[in-house]
């Protein structure tokens, strides 16, 4: 297998163990069914393995991998659903008790309804901040765009969320999102 096979695998293992929980979280927060989430997780790490020598290293790796997961989910939603053997196996090992325990609430709060009413791209941005705790720079890596674009889109997304909240509650105010860096809501 050439020079450094074992070393490559061990480096991969270290990354895998570090990012397994975040990727599981990313997938299960966005995909309703555990079977589909399992496919996302499996395909995301398969991509990481295949591209391991060419993918970003250090701090950029985590958001880059979120970007991979995002594209896998997008493909699923476009109907390019494909069951891989790895995903099937992971799904077969789903801990349903843990899933039931971790199930979300009904999402009927005012904020939840306002958030759900946003368009997908806005929810995606805001969730990267709030759920994954990414900074603007990291979001740029995850989405494959530049920081200025992210800033602009974030600004618009949070404005639309505030507008949605205003419609529902009449509330005015400042929501602060912090995730590595602070995002002021104005």
């Amino acid at each position, binding site marked *: 297998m050439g020079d450094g096979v074992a070393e490559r695998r061990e480096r991969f293992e270290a990354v895998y163990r570090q990012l397994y929980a975040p990727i599981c979280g990313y997938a299960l927060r966005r995909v309703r069914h555990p079977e589909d*989430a399992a496919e996302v997780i499996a395909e995301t790490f398969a991509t990481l393995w295949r591209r391991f020598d060419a993918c970003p290293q250090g701090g950029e790796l985590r958001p880059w991998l979120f970007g991979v997961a995002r594209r896998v989910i997008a493909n699923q939603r476009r109907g390019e659903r494909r069951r891989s053997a790895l995903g099937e*196996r992971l799904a*077969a090992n789903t801990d349903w008790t843990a899933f039931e325990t971790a199930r979300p609430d009904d999402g009927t709060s005012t904020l939840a309804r306002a958030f759900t009413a946003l368009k997908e791209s806005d929810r995606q941005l805001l969730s990267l901040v709030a759920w994954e705790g990414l900074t603007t720079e990291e979001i740029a890596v995850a989405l494959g765009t530049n920081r200025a674009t992210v800033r602009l889109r974030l600004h618009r997304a949070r404005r639309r969320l505030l507008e949605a909240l205003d419609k529902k509650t009449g509330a005015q105010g400042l929501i602060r999102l912090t995730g590595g860096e602070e995002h002021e809501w104005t």
Partner: protein
Amino acid sequence: MSGRSSIDSLRQLSPVSDAEAAAVFDAGREELLAGVTRLPLGRPDRRHATRRRRPLVLALALVVVLGTAAAAWAVLHGSPARETTSVQCLILGSDATIPSTSGDPAHDCAVDWKREFGTAPPPLAAYDNSLGGVTVIPRSQKPQKGWKPLRSQDVALIQLQDSLDDYINGLNSSCLGSGAATNLAESKLAEFGFTGWTVAVRSPGPSSTSLPTPKMKAGGKKAAPTQSLSETRTCVSADIVDPTTQSVTLIPVGVATGPKTTFEKLADKLRPLTQSCESLPAAVASVRAAAGDLGLSESARTYDLNAVTDNSLRCASIYETVGGTIFVTVRGPRA
């Protein structure tokens, strides 16, 4: 919501935490790691090219053909790339990395291309891509700087890798402890002519960066049995074959007991076939029948069947490995 809210407001909308999500998929964590690291290296599969793009690409390729003199190239032997078990096929805009099967990388890519697109590919040439891998491109295309022609990969190494990863009779055929897995690896090394190699079993547990222990020469003292976990079994089912250090590292993996998957069912069906002595055509037919019983189809790409003629064998061998899909490799005499 009114006034100033903290990050917690939106964060609390998060359906599940990372830890909760990881718990849902915890039982399959080690198996997934083992499965992923068995995948061929390179770029993600499949096929960025489409049939619609092909006429344009073919036209461009023709320009390249007309503009490029065919260069004779020396056959390269002893390259590290030769001792790999996967190949990257870069053909007319399609980029796929596939497991090696025949030892002829260009042939393997041609078979894969035909399977994918239903037509014969252009004449292909294989190169050591100077990154430790093998890349196949159209013969008419100029290789990148530093690439060296490569005629073949080590067939014995491919067979060794297949036989270890095999779900029919290899490490993945049942839950093997360290001793049984070591025995298996040693027998496979001997079967395919690898002498002087070492077999090591990595210590079980999540600390993956520890060095493989204990280490022994092939045929030496066996390792201690693997530890058992309460909810998952620990099976030695992953391996690293490293020609550079002439070593096979066996890796214990936590495996949850669950319903059998399709590829495990297929392995169960194929196992009896490996006890008989069939020619390549007969074995291929038997594999197709068994796969068909499970609803698997080559045309639907629910599994890939590779048939390799090897008249030095008396009976056909059958290996089933799992990567992005199920790969069944049948190797045997034509008659």
